[in-house]
């Protein structure tokens, strides 16, 4: 866990600690939020072995805090890598994973958030990371997740008049 | 002397002589354009280590004929919304100047259609007409790419007209006459009598030749300066909308311009039809030497085209305004000084 990673882990855990966590059943609210960095095992901010998982820090954030988390990572010098949508139809939820990489130190952060499948809505982070503009537009194309405040959510990879979302599990071609 | 020779070489019947020469020149330009295309594609092939066209005819020598028939067969389609008259006028205006210039160029002893004593001036005045023709072609075809390319042609040719004329003035001071035939006669004898090697008059003569060569390339939109029909940006530049023979005429005009440019370079610098060694000169050898030198320069033009990438547009203008013009001014000054040096010395001592 190199320096930048610990700094970011520290700030993110404070961020999650401060705001009242909205009632979200699957989110384990760990009691000792101000725990020292070494104890990032359970709870929203988990250190992960890179050789095992491919990223170093796994942070679960409520949908509202996505922009703040992005701002913290931006100040720490991280770059946006990818925005992945996963459709957990069984649990009736959509998971969005933001991947961040750091140009100089070998640290990769995956910020996860879960949104209800009925009306998937999420604030956009393209204000902080303009690169995410394209990623979010693509995720909107495939999953129908609406990103509030996104400059131009028109279909991107699909034909202009496409109203279907192929990567949803209940998509029948 | 047989009748034909008498008409061709002698002073009588100027109009019949001009007519015969014009027929010869048109045939020369037509065959030239066809086979220069083949030479270019073969040369490009050799440089890129592939054979070049070798399917039609023994080693591809029928390829130009095939291209010609293809271009002739294609239907000339005038796209809607273009200015009909200008659209048809542009190819003619592009083809006319090189033909007229070729009438003034001496190919042999006095093998010249019209021996005017302001030949050089006429060639350069006609040179600037094809700029207008290309611009008209680009503007008339009402195509976004063509309009951009016609704007580029104008600024490029204007930028390169000035250094070329400055260089020609230095040469005029050296040769003292504008009659192309007399220029060539001054360069008789061994090859060091050619203007190119007259270093005692103008120490920077090779540099002058290089400037002249670069300007000639830029005038004909060739090699590193082909901003006008840059394939990768403007598709086909000024003549995007021309199909069939319209495009063919533009193509032929481009090669005719190269021939005019190269023959001018040979006359001004390498002693037109003079042979490098005195003994080998004569009415038959003259044209052969002239064509040999001219085609050597044309092959260098082709060679340059397949070696260098295209220059940037503002670098192109910088090169002309910031480097070529100052250097040509310096050579002008130097030649003037060197010409007047003996007079000065005479006064002093």
């Amino acid at each position, binding site marked *: 866990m190199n320096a930048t990673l610990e700094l970011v882990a520290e700030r993110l855990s404070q961020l999650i600690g401060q705001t009242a966590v909205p009632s979200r059943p699957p989110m384990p609210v760990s009691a000792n939020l101000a725990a020292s960095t070494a104890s990032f095992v359970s709870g929203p901010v988990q250190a992960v072995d890179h050789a095992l998982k491919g990223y170093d820090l796994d942070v679960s954030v409520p949908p509202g805090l996505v922009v703040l988390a992005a701002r913290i990572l931006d100040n720490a010098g991280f770059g946006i890598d990818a925005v992945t949508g996963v459709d957990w139809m069984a649990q009736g939820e959509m998971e969005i994973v933001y991947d961040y990489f750091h140009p100089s130190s070998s640290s990769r952060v995956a910020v996860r958030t879960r949104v209800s499948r009925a009306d998937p809505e999420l604030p956009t982070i393209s204000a902080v990371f303009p690169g995410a503009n394209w990623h979010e537009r693509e995720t909107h194309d495939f999953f129908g997740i609406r990103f509030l405040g996104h400059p131009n959510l028109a279909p991107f990879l699909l034909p202009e008049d496409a109203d279907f979302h192929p990567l949803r599990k209940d998509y029948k071609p | 002397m047989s009748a034909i020779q008498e008409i061709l070489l002698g002073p009588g019947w100027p109009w019949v002589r001009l007519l015969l020469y014009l027929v010869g020149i048109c045939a020369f330009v037509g065959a030239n354009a066809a086979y220069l295309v083949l030479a270019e594609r073969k*040369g490009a092939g*050799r*440089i*890129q*280590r*592939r*054979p070049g066209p070798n399917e039609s005819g023994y080693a591809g020598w029928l390829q130009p004929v095939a291209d010609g028939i293809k271009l002739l067969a294609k239907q000339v389609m005038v796209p809607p919304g273009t200015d009909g008259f200008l659209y048809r006028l542009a190819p003619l205006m592009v083809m006319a100047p090189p033909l007229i210039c070729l009438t003034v160029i001496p190919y042999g002893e006095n093998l010249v259609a019209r021996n005017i004593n302001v030949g050089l001036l006429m060639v350069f005045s006609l040179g600037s007409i094809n700029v207008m023709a290309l611009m008209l072609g680009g503007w008339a075809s009402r195509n976004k790419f063509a309009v951009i390319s016609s704007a580029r042609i104008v600024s490029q040719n204007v930028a390169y007209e000035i250094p070329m004329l400055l260089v020609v003035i230095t040469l005029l001071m050296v040769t003292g006459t504008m009659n192309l035939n007399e220029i060539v006669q001054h360069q008789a004898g061994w090859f060091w009598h050619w203007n190119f090697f007259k270093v005692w008059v103008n120490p920077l003569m090779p540099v002058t030749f*290089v400037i002249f060569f670069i300007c000639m390339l830029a005038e004909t939109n060739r090699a590193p300066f082909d901003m006008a029909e840059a394939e990768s940006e403007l598709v086909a530049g000024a003549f995007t909308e021309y199909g069939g023979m319209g495009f063919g005429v533009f193509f032929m005009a481009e090669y005719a311009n190269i021939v005019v440019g190269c023959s001018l370079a040979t006359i001004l610098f390498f002693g037109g039809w003079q042979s490098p060694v005195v003994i080998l000169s004569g009415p038959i050898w003259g044209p052969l030497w002239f064509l040999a030198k001219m085609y050597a320069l044309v092959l260098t033009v082709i*060679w*340059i085209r*397949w*070696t*260098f990438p295209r220059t940037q547009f503002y670098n192109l203008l910088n090169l002309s305004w910031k*480097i070529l013009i100052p250097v040509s001014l310096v050579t002008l000054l130097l030649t003037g000084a060197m010409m007047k040096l003996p007079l000065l010395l005479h006064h002093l001592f």
Partner: protein
Amino acid sequence: MTMKAAFLEVYRGFMSLLTGMRITLGQCFKPIITVQYPRQTLKMAPRFRGHIELVLDPETGKSLCTACKLCERACPSDCIAVDGAKLDGQKTKSVTEYKLNFTTCSLCGSCIEACPFDAIQFSKDYNKVSFSRDTFSHMDLVKRLEERRKIWAQQRPAAPPAEMPMPGPAPASTPQTQEQKPS
């Protein structure tokens, strides 16, 4: 920048142009490296992956395939259709119909790896050509095996079966022109 630097830069620039031209002139006189395709053809590498074909068993002259359909299941773009029947007097099934849809095949070789009897292999011909699509969308490998069996059969009676030379898997359909490996 100083006058000297300006002149130096122009001079060095001009010299770089000359070196560029010297290199292309050098290249101009080197031999041609391109193969004139219709007249000369290239010999394919032994592991070249053409379309798949049934292997001819040298001794019996029949196919080794037992129509177990493992390849059909392994193919990602399901372009194989196998049909087998139990001929009398044999303990295992033998293949009666093997349809390959070469238009969707991506030549990945999963079928060859999945086949327990090594009954299919990659063929070596690359310039298959035809006027209609369905010669490729319903490639009948059993019929092709018949053709090769005829060639194999002709050679067999000539030489005793033991040291019979295995006919090259590439059927003689490609024009046998002069082979030339580029220098």
